[in-house]
């Protein structure tokens, strides 16, 4: 296979897998206006649960459900600390994230590797039955694509339901929610639960793809998620027919592509972060310019 083609496919795969995390960050940051730092902990949480279950011989698809559930619990904890105990949003996330660092290690024991003999969602029965003839890189691509698109469609549908509309209302105009006789705290809690379930799902898929859980794998994921969301929504701000979730998906792919370009160009790792920061700044400034224009108009 053409190297360039293959590189594009594996970059898209990365973008799709991490898009699941970006959807979560989109819900908290963009919809709820809640800077949720739980992500750095709930991402490896999903991976830790998946790793230990895979090693114990659990079906790889079941581990995804388990990750969704445990991520939801993590989101609930942050929500509970913020809404019920009245701790500031940023701090509530930090508390859960810090606690999760220990909990993740308790769950997985230590950094954990998954042997090749253990099946993952990319090598197990159903996938092999459908596309067992194609190479692993294609299987990973298709599975990641399906996951990213299906979750996106479910989210799109959900955001149009009554519950979803309330969620959007809390971020935009919390007073409205109160006048509708709904508790905005509970709505926020629900948003955090959904967001962190998605983040943990992303961690679970990364764990299966990488065949490893590492306690440090969560570091910087919030920043990545924010970047993907902001890049995506900024790029498509003018095209109102593009759904925000689609924009986030593209933002996620765009970010991963930039990293891949930098690696291909042989940029040293130290400069890599700087390049990302510059790119991030350019997109942000672009976004602000546009916002300013709209405000004046």
């Amino acid at each position, binding site marked *: 296979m*053409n190297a360039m083609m293959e*590189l594009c496919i594996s970059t898209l795969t*990365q973008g799709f897998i991490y898009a699941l995390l970006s959807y979560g960050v989109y819900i908290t940051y963009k919809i709820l206006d809640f800077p949720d730092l739980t992500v750095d902990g709930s991402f490896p949480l999903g991976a830790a649960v998946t790793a230990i279950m895979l090693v114990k011989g659990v079906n790889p698809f079941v581990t995804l459900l388990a990750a969704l559930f445990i991520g939801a619990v993590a989101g609930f904890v942050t929500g509970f600390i913020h809404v019920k105990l009245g701790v500031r949003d940023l701090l509530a996330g930090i508390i859960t994230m810090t606690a999760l660092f220990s909990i993740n290690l308790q769950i997985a024991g230590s*950094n954990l*590797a998954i042997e090749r003999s253990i099946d993952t969602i990319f090598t197990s029965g159903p996938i092999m039955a459908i596309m067992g003839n194609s190479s692993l890189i294609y299987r990973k691509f298709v599975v990641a694509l399906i996951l990213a698109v299906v979750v996106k469609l479910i989210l799109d549908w959900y955001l149009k339901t009554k519950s979803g509309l309330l969620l959007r209302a809390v971020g935009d105009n919390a007073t409205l929610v109160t006048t509708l006789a709904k508790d905005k705290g509970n709505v926020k809690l629900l948003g955090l639960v959904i967001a962190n379930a998605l983040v943990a799902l992303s961690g679970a898929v990364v764990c299966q793809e*990488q*065949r490893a859980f590492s306690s440090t794998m969560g570091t910087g994921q919030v920043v990545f998620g924010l970047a993907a969301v902001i890049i995506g929504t900024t790029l498509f701000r003018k095209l109102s027919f593009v759904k925000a979730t689609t924009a986030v998906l593209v933002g996620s792919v765009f970010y991963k592509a930039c*990293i891949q370009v930098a690696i*291909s160009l042989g940029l040293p*790792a130290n400069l890599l972060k700087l390049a990302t920061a510059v790119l991030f700044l350019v997109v942000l400034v672009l976004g602000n310019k546009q916002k300013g224009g709209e405000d004046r108009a």
Partner: protein
Amino acid sequence: MIKGEITYEKMMALAMAAVMTMAALTGCGGSSDSASGDVPVIGISQYGQHASLDNCREGFLLGLEESGLVEGVDYVIDYQNAGFDDTIAQQIAQNFSANNVALMCGIATNSATACYAAAEDKNIPVIFTAITDPVKAKLDSGNITGTSDKLPIEEQLKLIRALQPDAKTIGILYTTSEPNSVSAVEEYQAKAPEFGFTIEAIGVMQQSEVLQAADTMISKGVDCMTNLTDNNVVGVLPSILEKTNDAGIPVYGSEIEQVKIGCVASAGIEYVALGKRTGEMAAKILKGEATAEEMPYETITDSEIYINPGVLETLGLTVPEDIAAEAIDVTAE
């Protein structure tokens, strides 16, 4: 208002141009890679910038050369550094896989794991170095081999006993999530009684906690401290040494680079030699003399004794004649 709009349009165009340039550049990168397709590419993924890991890489290149292979003719190197970022390590490995490198070399556990995952489908051979416990990292079977840098713990204990005949407790700082460190601490605890020591170990979860742990360690009145190859601890070693020197507590390193920074001494393996052995193994694979699958991984146990005479003198330690004769002075050029 109109002015603002124009600026925006301009910036958008600029951004688009930038994106397209980048796309074009990757295109070029891709095609030039396949153009040099005749010469096998060795992809080296190093987990981060770190003196010992750098030594491994240098040794690896040396090992290839000394096995009679010529760079540019028999192989070309694609060296990448992940800056201690797991996500970057993954993308580097995928880059190697997409470019169909002949061999991947993973320096340190996380990089090797990422390489092995990316090589899964194509069965590209992976060679690793600087991994203390390949079995625990599940890198001991399959189309993978390499070298393990198990700490020479007995030699280190022997050295400490020789330099500090009256010492009773040895302090160790380590990261609890590092499997390498945990197993090394266990080994220290098991072997220390033989040499009449007790081990005082303090675990941390991240680098920001190390200095506080060092303060605690000093307050416990340990007679000396010894290092592992724990990245979090070694990363802040200079600050630890400031504290311990004030308190008059000698710190023993786990390899040469730590002694250069200011540890009193170390019985440590030589990372250039470790890398060199890895390079020789890689050469065998490239020449087709053996596959990574056939070759078992090797644990390098030969250790050297390194001393830092300046620090030894400051702390009032004397090196016994027999050890001084074979020890390597790291400050001598």
